[in-house]
């Protein structure tokens, strides 16, 4: 069974009215997005601001429901799943954010934050937390430290540890390396590749940076203003882009 299927997903927002009698404008944040992701594959979602990639990520994570279309995870339509079933399914798909400073509760130890997905399903295994820390290149003793004691790159490792502690089959990385320095970025990308191999993770990698996406993804989907501009294998997109917008992104990344 295909791990993740996104079928014609559309999401619209109604903007506040400009005047009392004019109808409110409707902004189509995501327009009929369609793609699939198999186990162990990586797909890069590339777009600039306003492209809709973050909105799409939120729908994949079931934080929002699509207005049209379906998001199927392991065959289940996330939008119509009852709340309890959705909660039970969440350990299978996890998320890493962009901001290594904001994604961890500053008042809680790192170990507490990593164990959160476990607590939600009534497990709380220190061993699992320790194992997750080691897998991301930190030490199990770090569990009792607070976020401010770590550097940006290390905090991102903590966030990744939290995301893999429940052994998910899908990892959604939303601009996960965008706030990091180049040398740290490389370390985290290597870590993601290692984890993908060790755990058989599928990764949905969202970024505005085509060179980053190109280095770790099997296929790429390019979005502009909510619409899918191009979708294909990394090889095809980087070497034989069909659309002008894709070519402009390649140029802007300094890759030509």
């Amino acid at each position, binding site marked *: 069974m295909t791990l993740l299927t996104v079928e014609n997903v559309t999401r619209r927002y109604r903007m506040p009215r400009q005047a009392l009698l004019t109808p409110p404008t409707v902004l189509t944040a995501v327009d009929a997005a369609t793609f699939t992701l198999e186990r162990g594959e990586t797909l890069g979602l590339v777009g600039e601001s306003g492209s809709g990639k973050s909105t799409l990520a939120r729908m994949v994570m079931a934080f929002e429901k699509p207005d049209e279309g379906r998001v199927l995870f392991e065959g289940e339509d996330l939008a119509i799943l009852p709340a309890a079933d959705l*909660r039970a399914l969440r350990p299978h798909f996890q*998320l890493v954010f962009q901001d290594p400073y904001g*994604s*961890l*509760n500053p008042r809680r130890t790192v170990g507490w*934050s990593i164990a959160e997905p476990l*607590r*939600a399903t009534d497990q709380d295994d220190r061993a699992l937390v320790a194992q997750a820390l080691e897998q991301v290149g930190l030490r199990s003793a770090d569990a009792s430290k607070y976020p401010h004691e770590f550097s940006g790159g290390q905090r991102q490792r903590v*966030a990744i540890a939290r995301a893999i502690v429940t052994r998910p089959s899908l990892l959604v990385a939303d601009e996960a390396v965008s706030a990091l320095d180049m040398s740290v970025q490389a370390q985290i990308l290597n870590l993601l590749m290692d984890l993908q191999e060790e755990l058989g993770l599928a990764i949905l990698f969202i970024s505005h940076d085509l060179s980053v996406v190109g280095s770790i993804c099997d296929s790429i989907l390019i979005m502009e203003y909510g619409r899918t501009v191009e979708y294909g294998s990394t090889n095809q997109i980087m070497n034989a882009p069909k659309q002008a917008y894709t070519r402009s992104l390649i140029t802007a990344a300094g890759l030509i």
Partner: protein
Amino acid sequence: MKRLPVNFLIGTAFVGLVVGVAALSLIWTPHDHTLLNIRSKFAPASPEHWLGTDQLGRDVFSQLMTAARNSVVVALTAVFIGGGIGVSLGLLAAAIGGLVEDFVMRLADISFAFPTLLFAIMLAAVFGPSLTVAVVAIAFINIPVFARVARASANQIWTREYVYAARAAGMGRFAITRDHVLPNIAAPVIVQATIEFAIAILAEAALSYLGLGAQPPAPSWGRMLSEAQTLMYLAPQLAIYPGLCIVLAVLGFSLLGDGLRDITDPRLARER
């Protein structure tokens, strides 16, 4: 210690003084504040009576001390009850959102619409004036204040990434409110609470002044003020002392709240 703002230090000193004296009054006052001694009425300050005596010969200092107890108890109780209810409503509104949020906030607005004094008069008319009436009335007006502060701060926390991460982890709204939202809104809520203490003390004094709060023989700064009004030309000091006490208490809590706000806000910005 050097980095603490001046207003915080002065505020803490004043509040400490008031609360300390109030606590002390439970076990000791120079004289029994209810002891009448008409023959030595309007006595000036002396080693015997530190601030003199009032129109019935009662020791003024002891009265002020015992009245402090009333003010502090009323203020703390009213703010805790009102704050407890208000914060809960605010958290609920932020956690659920949508129509529930609108409904809850309109409930809070309704509380806002009642002027404290009118509400207290209404309660007094039904239940008879008493300290309890004062507490309930003040608590009631605290609900919307805390509901707004809590809801606004909580809404901000709900957009933080670590809350999204908790949702992704499968945590329910109650768990997220308890683990993530509440600890992170503690600072603005506490600051608001100290400011509300100041207001509550003033409100209690006003209610007692009107005769709607503490009833004799329980002393209250407000009632001492109203009794002293008719005696302004005979013994003005009887109006000045309770007035000064009210100023001390209200100023103390206000400065403390101000100082707390200064301490918590820039630190938050620096942390990032």
